Structures are given as structure tokens and as C-alpha cells.
């Protein structure tokens, strides 16, 4: 199967990239890898686990869950307590296996909540999970023994009982632990999609009644998917606890659940690797844009809404939509249309970013005493000119893009029609 080989190359390439990337940012003055890059890459690893495990629900089973962070956070809290116990010598488990323990703790919680939530599906499922998420987040603030209240619980990861004699003091060691577990979890989730359970999850998503007629219990399928996705999220949470050595209620609150959804959806829920793309992109945005701008959530929100309206199959779906064209060797014909769409698109984005930043510096920035700077030049947010330029770029770019998009659509449809006529087979058109 050529598809399988192509995919395994992707896996190997991803591992190699993850292992080598920190060394590209090696700082010879300090003799270490850049701390910022390491922590960002580590964060990416955890978020990849979170997004992939979330996609076991949203993409593979059609379940819209709003409490996924509950299991991530549970893994984190459990990990902190395990680490503390191991530090006291009460828990003789090597560090490398600890994340699995954290995952099992989450699995236990996911079994309990899954029993309640998976009685329902669709909208009701979303509501119950919303309730569960809020319940756990409120409980985390109230009960001090396990959750530590608002201050959270902290731990020390240098417990010196590694299988390989590592101390886990330097962050590069922690990073490789994250890489290892991310790939173990991702591989496990990938093979789960090939099992009868994964297939039945797809079946209950696509045609609920037919799956029932075939003699499977859709509720059992939902329950198993829910519990297993909790297990993997818990592993991610365990890695979170190791990295930051403190877990607060942020790790199980609603914003993180929303993040899991955003990452999985923007990346693409229809392809296994989609959430990975989403996790990488959102983490980059989060650590890059949030340094420069107060309003990165606006950009993520708008991006998300645009994806929901125009590209429900996400980034991965968009890329895969080109497959038939690439196979026919006609990708070259799309270059010019792409450039023609890109220019007004860029203009539109610039205008939008300009307006958002101007507005936000007018209120939030002013309250924080910051001023808007572009290439070192200060911009007066009360002057008319910057507003006018941004508005013109937004409106002009929008109108231009609308025209170019119609042209692009014509070229695309023409190509697709050619391909269809050429091999006579049904080609899956981009939704």
C-alpha cells in the first residue's frame, strides 16, 4: 500500500524534526538550547496530544465535547501528587512511566463522566460536557486538598528514579520525554482509528441508525471513545505537570477546552494528522502573536469562524483537496490564480489587523500605558490617517478578494471537471 508507506515517511520525518529542532537554536554562549524555543516546542507536544485526543471525539465520533481540559487537568493534578509521592519515596515508579499513571487517573475520571455524558449525543452531549467542565473547574477552586485552590499544587520533578539515569533537571531532558510520549500517544491513537472500535466510531458519526441496525451499541462506542480520549488527554496533562512543576486551575478550565476544539477544528478534523497542524499553528500564534498583540484571541476567533464557514474540513482538508490535481500533474495551473488571490487576501488581512490593533490600543493599550509602534515609529491612534488606511485596505481588499475568489473558483471547478472527465471516476470535491 503506497499510502501506508507515504504516511510512515511522514511519521519518521516528524520524529526527526522534533528531535533535531532544539539543536537548531543552540546557544553557544550559554551552551544550551534556547529556553524559549524549548518551552514552545514542549508546549506544542502537549497540545498535539490534547488536540489529537480531542479529535477522537469531534472528528472521529462526531461528539462535540466541551470538557476535554477536565481530563488534561486531571492528569496534571494526578501527576503532581504522584511526583510528590515518588519524591517522598512512597511510589516506586520510574519517571518515564509516570505520564501513563497520570493518563490512567484521567481514564478513571473519564469512565465516570463518560458514563453520564455518553447517554446522549449531539447537542445534549455538548451541554452535559459543558456542565461537567464547569463543575470540575468550580470544584478545583473550592477543594484545597487535591486541587490546592487558586494557588494550585506544585511539585519537584527531579526525583532521581529514571530508567536511564536522567535527572530531568535540564529542560532538554524533559523535552525529549515529551517527544517520546507525544509519539507513543499519537501512534496509539492512530492505530486506534484502524481498529473495529475506530471504524464503528466513524459509523455512528455518519449514520447513527444504521450503526444501530448492524447490532452495535452506539452508546458503548461513544463511551469507549470518550474514556480512551480521556486517557490520552491525561498523558498530556501529566507532561504539563512535569514541565511546569505546578498545576493550577487553568489546566482544567473552559479556555483550555475551547483551545482543544480550536486546534482540532482549524487543523482539520477529517484527517488524522489535522489536529497536529492545528496544535502547531495555534501554539505558534499563542507564543508569537500574544507577545506582540493584546488581541490574538480575536484573530484566532475570526480564523475559526472563517474555517467553519468556508473550509469545514480544516487546513488538512484544504491541503488534501489538492491531491487529485497534484496526481494529474496540473498543480502548475493553480499558481497564477493563487497569486491573484493572495495579494488582495494579504491586503484584507492587513486592513483587519490594522483596525483591530488601532481599536485595542485605543482602549486596552491606553489603560496599560502602551503605545502602538510600527518599525519603531509611534502611531497616533487618535489620528484619522491610520484608521482611514486600514479601513480602505479592509474594504478594498475584501471587494477585490471577492472578485478574485470567483475567478479562482472558476479555474478550480474547471480543473476538477477536467479531472473527472479524464479518469471518469468520482473525485471527492473540496467541501
Amino acid at each position, binding site marked *: 500500500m503506497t499510502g501506508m508507506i507515504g504516511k510512515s515517511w511522514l511519521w519518521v520525518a516528524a520524529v526527526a524534526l522534533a528531535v533535531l529542532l532544539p539543536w537548531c537554536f543552540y546557544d553557544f554562549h550559554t551552551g544550551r538550547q534556547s529556553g524559549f524555543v524549548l518551552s514552545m516546542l514542549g508546549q506544542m507536544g502537549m497540545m498535539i496530544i490534547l488536540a489529537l485526543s480531542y479529535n477522537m471525539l*469531534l472528528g472521529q465520533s*462526531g461528539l*462535540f465535547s466541551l470538557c476535554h481540559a477536565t481530563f488534561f487537568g486531571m492528569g496534571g493534578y494526578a501527576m503532581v501528587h504522584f511526583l510528590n509521592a515518588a519524591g517522598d519515596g512512597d511510589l516506586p515508579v520510574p519517571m518515564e512511566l509516570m505520564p501513563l499513571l497520570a493518563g490512567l487517573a484521567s481514564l478513571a475520571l473519564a469512565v465516570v463522566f463518560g458514563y*453520564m455524558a455518553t*447517554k*446522549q449525543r*449531539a*447537542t*445534549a452531549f*455538548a*451541554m*452535559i460536557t*459543558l*456542565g*461537567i467542565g*464547569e*463543575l470540575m473547574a*468550580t*470544584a478545583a477552586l*473550592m*477543594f*484545597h*486538598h*487535591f486541587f490546592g485552590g487558586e494557588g494550585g499544587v506544585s511539585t519537584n520533578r527531579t526525583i532521581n528514579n529514571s530508567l536511564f539515569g536522567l535527572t530531568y533537571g535540564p529542560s532538554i531532558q524533559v523535552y525529549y520525554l515529551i517527544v517520546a510520549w507525544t509519539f507513543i500517544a499519537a501512534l496509539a491513537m492512530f492505530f486506534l482509528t484502524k481498529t473495529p472500535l475506530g471504524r464503528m466510531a466513524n459509523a455512528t458519526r455518519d449514520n447513527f441508525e444504521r450503526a444501530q441496525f448492524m447490532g452495535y451499541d452506539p452508546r458503548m462506542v461513544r463511551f469507549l471513545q470518550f474514556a480512551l480520549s480521556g486517557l490520552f488527554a491525561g498523558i498530556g496533562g501529566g507532561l504539563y505537570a512535569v514541565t511546569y512543576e505546578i498545576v493550577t486551575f487553568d489546566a482544567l478550565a*473552559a479556555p483550555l477546552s*475551547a483551545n482543544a*476544539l480550536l486546534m482540532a*477544528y482549524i487543523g482539520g478534523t477529517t484527517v488524522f494528522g489535522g489536529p497536529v497542524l492545528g496544535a502547531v499553528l495555534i501554539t505558534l500564534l499563542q507564543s508569537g502573536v500574544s507577545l506582540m498583540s493584546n*488581541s490574538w*484571541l*480575536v484573530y*484566532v*476567533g*475570526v480564523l*475559526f*469562524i472563517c474555517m*467553519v*464557514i468556508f473550509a*469545514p474540513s480544516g487546513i488538512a482538508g484544504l491541503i488534501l483537496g489538492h491531491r487529485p490535481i497534484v496526481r494529474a500533474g496540473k498543480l502548475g495551473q493553480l499558481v497564477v490564480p493563487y497569486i491573484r488571490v493572495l495579494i488582495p487576501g494579504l491586503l484584507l488581512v492587513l486592513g483587519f489587523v490594522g483596525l*483591530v490593533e488601532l*481599536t*485595542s490600543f*485605543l*482602549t*486596552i493599550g*491606553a*489603560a496599560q500605558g502602551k503605545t502602538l509602534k510600527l518599525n519603531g515609529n509611534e502611531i497616533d491612534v487618535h489620528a484619522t490617517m491610520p484608521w482611514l488606511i486600514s479601513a480602505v485596505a479592509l474594504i478594498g481588499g475584501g471587494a477585490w478578494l471577492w472578485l478574485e475568489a470567483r475567478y479562482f473558483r472558476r479555474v478550480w471547478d474547471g480543473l476538477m471537471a477536467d479531472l473527472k472527465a479524464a479518469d471518469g471516476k468520482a473525485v471527492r470535491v473540496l*467541501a
Partner: protein
Amino acid sequence: MEIVLISLLNGLVYGMLLFMLASGLTLIFSMMGVLNFAHASIYMIGAYLAFTVSRFIGFFPALIIAPILCGLLGAGIEVWGLRRVHQNGHIAELLFTFGLVFIIQRGVQMTWGMLPMAYRVPQILDFPLFTLFGANFPAYRGFMLLISAGMLLGTWLLLKKTRVGLIIQAALTHPQMASSLGHNVPAVFTIVFAGGCLLAGLAGVIGGNYQTTEPGMADAMGPIVFVVVVFGGLGSLAGCFIASIIMGMVQTFAVVIDYSLIDLVKPLGISITADNLLTEILTVPVSRIGALLPFAMMILMLLFRPRGLLGTRDT
């Protein structure tokens, strides 16, 4: 005794406020099958708009203008947003309203800033209405009760006694049939969505100065409103009303109850000296876990009666 009476009144005020939000949500859900996550965000916009309008032309014009603006916003969301994603299925619609929450949240912060607004009760209503066992009951709360009761009556009359209401009810249960009879069902959808947003906006106007007008108010209100809708039974207005009042009462009474689980067995002579997670659960007073009760109640309800109090179909 006075605590019970005062809490009863406060619970009623809060419950009616909840109902104003929840009724729109329920109507929208039963008609379009869409659970509008952005409903509480519209509530927040209503409060902020009312603040801005009342600064220029006073509170009472704002009471009319802000909800209408919210209704128009709702109509826009329905026509340009929801209708477009409708073809991609229910999950896409849910996701769309979910994305709106982020944008509205940050949009409000960008326009009005992060700090709470000085949106106050109008002076004309700022006096104690009556005194009950030495505790004042503010006139503004009475005014809130009046507005919400008026809205309840208005919605009921509109739905049950007018031709428009008849068509809405028909489109609610039999959209295809109503459409075949020549009624413009998509337009009815828009009207219902806009109407729900109008009610949310109205709730924002009178709730904004009852609570505080700040960027976190949507996040604080949103989950509770969903709990109300699910608890009362999706799609049932009467159930929604009962659930709103119950939740309002639970929230206000929880604050004043200083007992914990262990107090139930205290007469038996059992006392706790250990200090761990289990004893913490047993000894925590109800007043501290008040915020947790609605969610626990909702989960229990869904476990034992998935259709909610008066729901007609399984959720």
C-alpha cells in the same frame, strides 16, 4: 425568617433575569435546533450598549434602544452567519456560535476596555421600595421584576394570541408543513432568532446595573443559562420558567446556608477530626459550594430524567 423572605425576593429577581435569557435560548433551540452559545454574549452587549446610550440620553430610552440594537445584531448573525453554515450540519452551527463568543468577548474588551463600567441604577429608581424586618428592598429590583413579568406576559400573548405567534408555533413543530402553506419559514427563523437576542439584550440592560457591567459577565452568566435550559427541558418554555426560578432560589439561598453535610449527622454524635479530601467534602459549608450546585443539579437531572423537567423529547 427575614433572611428567608429577603432571599425569596432576591431569588425571584435573579430567577426572572435568568428566565429572560433562557426563554430566548429555548425558543431559538426548539425552532432551529441550534444552541446559541453566544446568547450570554448578546446579554453582555446589551448591558454595554445600555451603558453607552444611557450616558447620552438617559436610562429609559436605553431600555428601548439597546434591546432593539441587540435584536438587529441577532438578525444579522442569523442571516449572514447561521444560514450559511446551516448546510454543514448542526455541529457546524454550534461551532459557529461558539466562535462568536470569542469574537464578541474580545470585541467588547477592545471597544470598552477591560475595566468594569460605571453603569449605575438610574437615580429615579434608586430608593428603598419597602423595608422588611429592617432590611431594605431596593426599588430597582421591583422594577426588574416588573419588566421581566411584563416581558413574560408579552411573549406569552404574542405566542398564544396573535397570528404571528400561531405561525411561529407551527414553524416550530412542522417547518415543512408551514412552508408548504406559503409561510416564509426562513424569515420566521430570523424573527425568532432576533427576538431571542432582543430579550437577551433587555436582560442585559436591566441586569448590567444589577450585577456589574464588565467583560467577564458573559462567561459568568452563560453556563448558568445553559443549565437552566437543560434542566427545564430543551424546548419547553414552562419548564424553562420553573427551572429559572429554581436556579435563582438555589443560588441566593446557598449563600446564606452555613451548614455542611456533616451537620446532618451531628445529632448522632459523629464528629470529624481528620483532615483530608473526603472530610473536606463533608465539612465544606453550602455557602462555599453555591457556584457548584447548579451544575451538579443539571448532571443529576440528565442522569435520571434526560428530557429535563418538562421537556417533551429526549435531549
